[in-house]
């Protein structure tokens, strides 16, 4: 593995998630962008026996890469040589039965209890801004055993309470809140990954557990409107490798729609990584 010389912040987040992918586990990826690319990256480079499921009920495909632009579900290249072709209801039911170990999703806004907003910024129905809605993320966040959330490290995205709960985290954070809302037992948020950091949960509250080498804990906290708990020892995240970036750029996100979409560019100056 070769240390990469230059990469975007979104690429960092996807590579960090790829390192979490484990053999023998199932991953339900929300939509077709960052979550799908992260799981594929992990599967292709580190965990060949990890399997993924998509919202249109495709079980364990061997996709023909690269995808056509936007065509990451239903399209023939995306669903190629799957073990099963299903439907949205079959995917939802398989998750409801407990077959999905991990859900991987991205979002607009997350709060201290891992609740996810992808519907509305501002007071609902007021003058705020509408976004796309939960899509498949609500079922993923409700029914997969563990949820990995990808988002950007921005102040307005890490808040005390999301403006609108589109997909459930630990709800009000009290023990049993999910079960009282009818959600399956022992499920819930597990990690949040941003281009700068990784978080886990302690007593159902968000906790900073790792950072990338080129930002400090203070810089991360400055980009959190609501301050998370901090682990006693904050780990350092491995930067992307050339192998990871090559796969991402040549086979997964060929047009750079996801990888170039936001954030700074990180470069190696001969001694350390610096943010442009």
């Amino acid at each position, binding site marked *: 593995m070769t240390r990469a010389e230059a990469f975007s912040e979104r690429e960092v987040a996807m590579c960090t998630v790829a390192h979490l992918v484990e053999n023998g586990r199932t991953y339900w990826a929300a939509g077709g962008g960052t979550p799908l690319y992260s799981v594929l990256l992990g599967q292709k480079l580190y965990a060949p026996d990890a399997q993924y499921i998509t919202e*249109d009920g495709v079980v364990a495909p061997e996709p023909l890469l690269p995808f056509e632009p936007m065509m990451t*579900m239903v399209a023939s290249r995306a669903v190629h040589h799957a073990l099963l072709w299903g439907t*949205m209801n079959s995917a939802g039911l398989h998750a409801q039965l407990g077959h999905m170990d991990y859900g991987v999703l991205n979002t607009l806004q997350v709060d201290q209890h891992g609740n996810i907003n992808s519907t509305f910024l501002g007071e609902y129905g007021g003058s705020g801004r509408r976004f796309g*809605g939960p*899509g*498949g993320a609500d079922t993923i966040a409700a029914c997969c055993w563990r949820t990995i959330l990808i988002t950007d490290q921005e102040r307005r995205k890490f808040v005390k309470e999301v403006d609108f*709960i*589109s997909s459930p985290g630990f709800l009000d954070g009290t023990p049993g809140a999910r079960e009282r809302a*009818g959600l399956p037992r022992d499920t819930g948020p597990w990690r949040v990954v941003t281009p700068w950091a990784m978080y886990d949960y302690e007593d159902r509250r968000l906790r900073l557990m790792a950072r990338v080498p080129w930002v400090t804990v203070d810089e991360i906290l400055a980009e959190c409107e609501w301050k998370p708990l901090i682990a006693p020892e904050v780990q350092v995240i491995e930067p992307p490798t050339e192998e990871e970036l090559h796969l991402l750029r040549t086979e997964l996100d060929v047009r750079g729609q996801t990888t170039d979409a936001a954030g700074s560019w990180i470069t190696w100056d001969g001694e350390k990584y610096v943010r442009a």
Partner: protein
Amino acid sequence: MTAPAARRSLPILREGTSAYLKVDPDGFRAYVRDNKQRALTPRLMSAREAVERFVADGDYLAYECNYLMRGPNELVHEIIRQEKKQLWAAGKFTYVDVALLVDAGCVSRADCGFFLSSPPIDRALREGRLEVFEYSNVIMTTRLQAGAMGIPFLPVRSFGGTDGFDHSGAKLITDPYTGDPITIVPALNPDVAIIHVHQADVYGNARVFGTGISDVESALASRKVIISAEEIIETDDIRAKPGATSIPYYAVDAVVHSPHGSYPGTCPGYYGSDPEVVFEIFRAIMTDQVQAYLDKWVRPFATFAEMLNERVGAAKLEAMTAREVAKDGYSA
């Protein structure tokens, strides 16, 4: 002596407050009895006739897949061309369709699973031309599943605890079997479903190859069903491989022969997408230029075939077909 179980009241612990399409399983059965053609009579017709006859102003509309992926795009164009009004759309698993139909003046209400937030949607919300009700993709397909089963609701293990729940037709009750809280969501029986398939016969026996969202659920749950098909095949072919039939004829009211009917999207196994035009429609929506898109791709043409001939051309359609190299699984 305790009351019989059936007499005990089942308290509603929490419920959403939004409007939802009326739940009426017996009304649906009566509609089926009185309107569905259970005789094997041909129902092949043009898109214009199908939309004239089976899409009415004010209808609840379900479309399957979306404008980019095996969408019933010929029928969507025809709905826009005929200027249908006040439709209530099932906006699940959608990027551009809701924005297109809203800006075209056809849709004024939408149940949201997912659809692209965009300037046309924002403008319509601001101007009070659009109401949105909150669900998720899977909750929407679950509602269609309940509708397709002829029952009034289904319990689900998701959706509880969200703000979407509070802005929907869902309810949280105590499960009478386990005693645990459980969310129930109302059955959805759309007035009309439009579904693009790979093959159908003239009676509406239809085959979908590959994955989908809720083709079968929508077909069975909807009062009126228009199938558009890439290929019209012989009923003898259907009978030779009955296991390949996805949708039975008696659910279907109209069959439209619609080759390249998902353009500019893909019809998996048959042709790939037209990436330039896929980007064009994204750009049109994100820059609030839907009217220009419709004036270029929809309104000048009497039919979808005319648009394909004049605006796209046979050479490009052939190239899209040639680029679709993944063929395994896309036949009966």
